[in-house]
């Protein structure tokens, strides 16, 4: 200890705190909080500005207009006009728009995938013509903006032929004209929900039976006919629930009582519950954080950074609770109302002297007024739908083809050779070795393409297809509720993105496990 006297004066046991303006931890957090504050202040400022600008024009900002009558017609969809038995309110019109978006998006995703996979695989074909043809397809379609393609499709389809009472090609069954295509339609009839609930119920039973069967298969070995017995049971369940679904009518009462029960929840309870949820989640995160710092020898020393982090979590939780309790009680009442409405709608789908037939079908008809038009009975693909649909499908399929090609190329050639060396046949090798691996590469970018397709449905506005953005525009042109409509756009598309990406993530995880 002779020589360390000079240093001991400096080497105190605890770290000396520097002055605050040179304290890096403090600087870091001050800057962050300042930026956060600036961003929030800017937001707050912009919103108030917009509010005052709007109210200067006599436009209150909010969602009170949901139940106003729409006063306009929609081009197409599950409901297009206002009628005494079914009001077309503003919010209803937006629903119809969303449904139209889904119609295009889902159909588009299916067809784009089919075409994309075919083209992508043929780009790797041994055949020169197939390879060339598909690469021309890809290059041609992906290098022209989708909006140009959609508008071009409208121009092309618009030049087909006018709709007359005898337009074919199969009069009365399939009708193609510049107004679109109409074919016979299968639709959900009155008994559908009873059918569905009974079938789900039976399926649960079948699932249990199948588990027993699988267990027996594993115990006894040999062929215990698991697959065929399950199939037979499912068919039987389908038949039973198709014809004998009347007993399920009792669900009407169940849902009705749920409706009234939900509606009678006091708002305070929901508010307090939500606040407790926020605080609880915050507390859990704090606990998890502390847990991660816990060592066998007790809690590890927390750095300044850790303290700030804990403080921040706590602050966010408290602010969230405060918002729920004081600032935005509307959220709670909205939760109550929509829950009640949800059960109300469900209870309307059951019993009360409805038919029990789940599905029904009708042939297309034409309405002949001053102009000939498609009637409501057939499954009609309007020319607007068609041009948007074709544009989306072909454009996206070109990208999907590239994704598929890349995925297959990403599987090392050694994999196929190894599979062959193990004695797998070519088909087996493809199914068990190559495709699963390619799939893992393909899945994320494929999900991205699905997302792009869904977002691109918004281009329907260019051809007058009544999807959500177009309907929303009509709405805010009528009542100037731009802020509210844009918030709905945002929530809708974010929900779509989240859904698609969580599905993709789920599949990816499953595949990763399968691989291991």
């Amino acid at each position, binding site marked *: *200890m*002779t*020589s*360390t006297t*000079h*240093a*001991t004066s*400096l*080497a*105190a*046991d*605890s*770290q*000396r*705190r*520097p*002055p605050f303006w*040179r*304290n*890096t*931890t*403090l*600087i870091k957090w001050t800057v962050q909080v300042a930026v956060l504050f600036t961003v929030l202040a800017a937001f707050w400022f912009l919103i108030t500005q917009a509010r005052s600008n709007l109210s200067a024009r006599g436009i209150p900002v909010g969602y009170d207009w949901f139940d106003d009558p729409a006063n306009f017609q929609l081009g197409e969809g599950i409901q297009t006009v206002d009628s005494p038995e079914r009001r077309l309110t503003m919010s209803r019109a937006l629903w119809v728009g969303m449904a139209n978006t889904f119609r295009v998006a889902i159909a588009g995703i299916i067809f784009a995938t089919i075409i994309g996979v075919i083209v992508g695989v043929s780009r790797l074909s041994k055949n020169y013509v197939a390879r060339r043809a598909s690469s021309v397809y890809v290059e041609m379609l992906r290098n022209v903006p989708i909006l140009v393609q959609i508008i071009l499709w409208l121009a092309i389809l618009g030049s087909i032929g006018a709709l007359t009472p005898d337009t074919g090609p199969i009069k009365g069954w399939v009708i193609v004209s510049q107004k679109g295509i109409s074919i016979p339609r299968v639709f959900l009839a009155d008994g559908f929900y009873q059918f569905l609930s009974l079938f789900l119920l039976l399926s649960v039973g079948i699932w249990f039976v199948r588990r027993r069967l699988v267990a027996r298969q594993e115990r006894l070995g040999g062929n215990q006919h698991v697959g065929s017995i399950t199939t037979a049971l499912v068919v039987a369940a389908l038949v039973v629930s198709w014809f004998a679904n009347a007993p399920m009518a009792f669900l009407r009462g169940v849902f009705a009582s749920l409706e009234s029960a939900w509606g009678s929840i006091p708002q305070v309870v929901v508010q307090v519950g939500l606040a407790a949820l926020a605080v609880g989640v915050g507390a859990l995160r704090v606990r998890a954080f502390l847990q*991660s*710092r*816990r*060592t066998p*020898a007790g809690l*590890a*020393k927390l*750095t*300044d950074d850790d303290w700030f982090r804990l403080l921040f979590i706590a602050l966010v939780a408290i602010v969230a609770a405060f918002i729920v309790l004081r600032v935005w009680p509307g959220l709670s009442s909205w939760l109550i109302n929509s829950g009640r409405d949800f059960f109300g709608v469900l209870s309307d789908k059951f019993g009360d002297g409805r038919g029990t037939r789940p599905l029904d079908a009708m042939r297309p008809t034409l309405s002949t007024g001053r102009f000939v038009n498609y009637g409501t009975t057939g499954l009609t693909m309007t020319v607007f739908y068609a041009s948007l649909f074709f544009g989306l499908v072909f454009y996206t399929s070109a990208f999907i083809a590239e994704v598929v090609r890349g995925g297959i190329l990403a599987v090392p050639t050694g994999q196929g050779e190894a599979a062959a060396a193990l004695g797998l046949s070519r088909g087996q090798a493809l199914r068990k070795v190559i495709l699963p691996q390619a799939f893992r590469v393909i899945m994320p970018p494929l999900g991205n393409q699905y997302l792009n397709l869904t977002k691109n449905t918004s281009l329907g506005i260019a051809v007058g297809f009544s999807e959500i953005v177009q309907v929303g525009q009509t709405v805010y042109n009528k009542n100037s509720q731009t802020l509210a409509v844009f918030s709905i756009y945002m929530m809708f598309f974010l929900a779509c993105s989240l859904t698609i990406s969580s599905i993709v993530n789920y599949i990816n995880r499953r595949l990763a496990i399968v691989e291991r």
Partner: protein
Amino acid sequence: MSIADQSLTTELASRNDVIVCRGVKKWFGDFQALRGVDLTVKDREVLVVLGPSGSGKSTLIRCINRLEAHQEGSIVVDGVELTNDLRNIEKIRSEVGMVFQQFNLFPHLTVLDNITLAPVWVRKKPKADALAKAMELLERVGIPEQAAKFPGQLSGGQQQRVAIARALAMEPKIMLFDEPTSALDPEMIKEVLDVMKELANSGMTMIVVTHEMGFAREVADRLVFMESGEIVEVGTPDQFFSAPREERTKKFLSQIL
């Protein structure tokens, strides 16, 4: 501590302390990598740190130039205590040079730019002076002809020598080496070790983490053996290799020699 103090030669004891660590503790999340390290390094001393993988050698020397922040205890480098004081950190960084196992040269800059970057922008030297100094250093490490090349065009040994030159260009008082030869092919190890020996002979204070026992025997003033975040034994090379005191040191040496 008393062991270390006794083994110091009187000559060494009369020098100043440039690095003083007292009870340094460091956690990564819930894992404690340093469990109270006490260490003193004298001016112009060459200290070699030994120890099995994961024993906290890298963590210790990374704490000494604050690439990692320690949580308890104190580290004083050249009279400056390492805290989250902006000025202290700036000062330490420019006085302590470091050489990494993976060289960590900047791949998008030429050798010369690698060396002159910090002198120009941190030390605010005129570009011409920095260039002259860089060429001088390249001469010293024996690769002046590679000045205009990119790191990717050099061999591992050459890259590590550039890394040493880059650290020296800041004219540091202390150099830290974290396994500088572990990523090198055997025939390149010697050229790097020669540079380090020359540096040690010129009176640089050095802490070297290495598994090169020949180097340790020849150059080190003292050896430090670490295990699971603690200093187990400190001693001169002779005493360390011929008569290790601790059981764990013996075991380690028997495995490695």
